């Protein structure tokens, strides 16, 4: 689960990570009030779940109240297009108004779980404010890493090693090690999958602050992070994806015309791949999971077919725990109930598959049964071509 910058900063501050003073605003009036409370100048920042806001005009410096109002009016309600939002962009519904700070240096620091060691890892660089992937690719010597033993936490020598590596001295050194240690505690305490501070700021006064903050929390840990779970902003998610998550379905909207319904994430990705290889394009990723019930299948079908781009449905199920006859029963019921008129290609294999095929044939509905994945993709392309001809 992703968080807004202002939410991330508030959570980090709870662990002792220093942040600039700031307030959230949902209107220009609130932004002006926030600015007069904080003192000018301020920075007005669009709050959306995507990076690259500055380049898209979503971050503005305001020196007067009029400038605050102008910035808020310009950003609120605007649709920002950044390299992370996709071409459709993201509507801005809230702002963070933050005190302006005098910048001496900008650096980078993040914590992630390093999969190859299975441990938390700190990645830091003196090249702040830049795309860290570019820094890693072009000047890998500028990247510092430290792997943390989860039983011990971040050790003082590790924080010192990073601080020396970043060129911190004197009071900045002390502030820097404190910052890094607090950031690790936040990463651990929040069950974060990533905490990224870019830039981490050294002010002219020698303070070390998180000027921006990106926090992603492990979805599997939300049951024990109620404070974080309550921060979910469904405006930042696509409506169909929100609906799917209510039914514990994993759905991601894509831009093709073949609606896919598959059990298992790996098989679902492989199904998208074979659709593409056959010359068509998947409309979605949809994993109904291992033990889908008739109700789950109906929900899945409703979500998938409510995407207006979908012209053919491809169902690929390898039944293990999910028996094929149960799938067929759920499917027939769903198609009848929802009055689906889209052509449906079904490929099934596994437990009780013969029984299931018989049920589909006897239903009298427009199902095309396929033999194997390649045949299924071929049938999909054929049905699409048939539609174009008609």
């Amino acid at each position, binding site marked *: 689960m992703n968080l807004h910058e202002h939410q991330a900063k508030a959570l980090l501050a709870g662990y002792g990570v220093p942040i600039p003073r700031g307030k959230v605003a949902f209107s220009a009036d609130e932004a002006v009030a926030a600015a007069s409370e904080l003192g000018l100048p301020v920075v007005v920042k669009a709050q959306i779940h995507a990076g690259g806001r500055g380049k898209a005009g979503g971050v503005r410096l305001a020196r007067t109240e009029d400038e605050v109002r102008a910035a808020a009016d310009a950003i609120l309600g605007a649709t920002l297009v950044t390299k992370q939002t996709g071409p459709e962009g993201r509507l801005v519904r809230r702002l963070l108004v933050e005190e302006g700070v005098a910048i001496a240096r900008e650096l980078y620091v993040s914590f992630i779980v390093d*999969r190859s060691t299975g441990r938390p890892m700190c990645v830091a660089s003196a090249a702040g404010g830049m795309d*860290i992937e570019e820094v890693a690719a072009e000047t890998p010597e500028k990247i510092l890493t430290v792997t943390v033993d989860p039983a011990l936490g971040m050790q003082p020598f590790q924080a010192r090693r990073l601080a020396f590596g970043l060129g911190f001295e004197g009071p900045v050194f002390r502030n820097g090690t404190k910052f890094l240690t607090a950031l690790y505690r936040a990463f651990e305490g929040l069950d974060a999958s990533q905490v990224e501070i870019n830039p981490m700021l050294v002010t002219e006064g020698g303070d070390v602050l998180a000027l921006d903050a990106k926090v992603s929390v492990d979805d599997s840990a939300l049951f024990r992070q109620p404070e974080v779970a309550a921060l979910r902003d469904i405006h930042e998610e696509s409506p169909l994806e929100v609906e799917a998550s209510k039914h514990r379905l994993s759905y991601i909207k894509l831009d093709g015309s073949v609606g896919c319904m*598959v059990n298992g*994430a*790996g098989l679902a*990705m492989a199904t998208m791949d074979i659709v593409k290889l056959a010359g068509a394009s998947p409309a979605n990723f949809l994993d109904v999971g291992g033990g889908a019930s008739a109700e789950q299948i109906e929900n899945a079908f409703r979500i998938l077919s409510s995407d207006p781009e979908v012209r053919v449905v491809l169902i690929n199920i*390898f039944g293990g725990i999910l028996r094929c006859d149960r799938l067929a029963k759920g499917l027939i019921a769903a198609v009848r109930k929802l009055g689906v008129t889209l052509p449906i290609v079904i490929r099934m294999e596994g437990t009780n598959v013969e029984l299931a095929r018989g049920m589909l044939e006897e239903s009298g509905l427009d199902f095309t049964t396929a033999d194997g994945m390649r045949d299924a993709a071929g049938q999909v392309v054929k049905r699409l071509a048939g539609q174009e001809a008609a």
Partner: protein
Amino acid sequence: MSVLVGNETRLVVQGITGREGAFHAEACRDYGTDLVAGVVPGKGGQTAVGVPVFDTVAEAVAKTHANVGFVLVPPPFCADAYAEAVDAGLDLVVSITEGVPTRDMVRVMRTVPPGGTRILGPNCPGVISPGKAKVGIMPGFIHREGHVGVVSRSGTLTYEAVHQLSERGIGQSTCVGIGGDPVIGTNFVDVLELFAADDDTGAVILIGEIGGGAEEEAADFIRRELKKPVVAFIAGQTAPPGRRMGHAGAIVMGGQGTAAGKMEALRSAGCTVVESPAEMGAAMETRLRG
């Protein structure tokens, strides 16, 4: 021989009195696995699925000489069940549980001493040595006894590969699902090491996914040490970057973990890399003939 599980496997199911626990314990036993015990704290002394239930794994080991654990408990309790199996000194513990917090896995992996219990999963289909033993949730009947080792991050896509092999009369030595989470107990390289040393495994199918660097590490190992034919498929060639594809681990970030990069690494290590998931079985047939 086979790897991880076989005729010597003596299974204890942790969470055996739950609906899932009882169902899968029975399915494993019906396949031929030697189910010897169950463990549910507070239910020691009862009987479930025809075997004695104990309060602790240590007691189950002492009384029944169980050597492999199968964890079927809800996500908040999974890591603790793993840790108990490690403490009891089982050879292997498998969990299919989906939704285990990554931090729990990070911590539990820290408790495994060198040479200690092997953890498989979580969020995986488990492991099966056809004709010998199954500790997992895969449909047993699609498998055939034979000499191809299968290792995969996916569940149903593994069944797909096995189905394609069995259809062609190609049997399997052991099929291992390692799971799709960011931190897992057993990685590709761990399983490939076992396959490399197993006389009964003559060739390997490796099924990877976008995200992380485990396939690249596998490619390095194959190049250096695995002198057996390998057929590989990477799922997610068409997945958009930055989106998590169902599995917590399946995400392309900042150009890392792409299908193209993984396919190239495996190809340059001498693997036959198929673009289509429908070609896994046929490609293995070709490699075995060649």
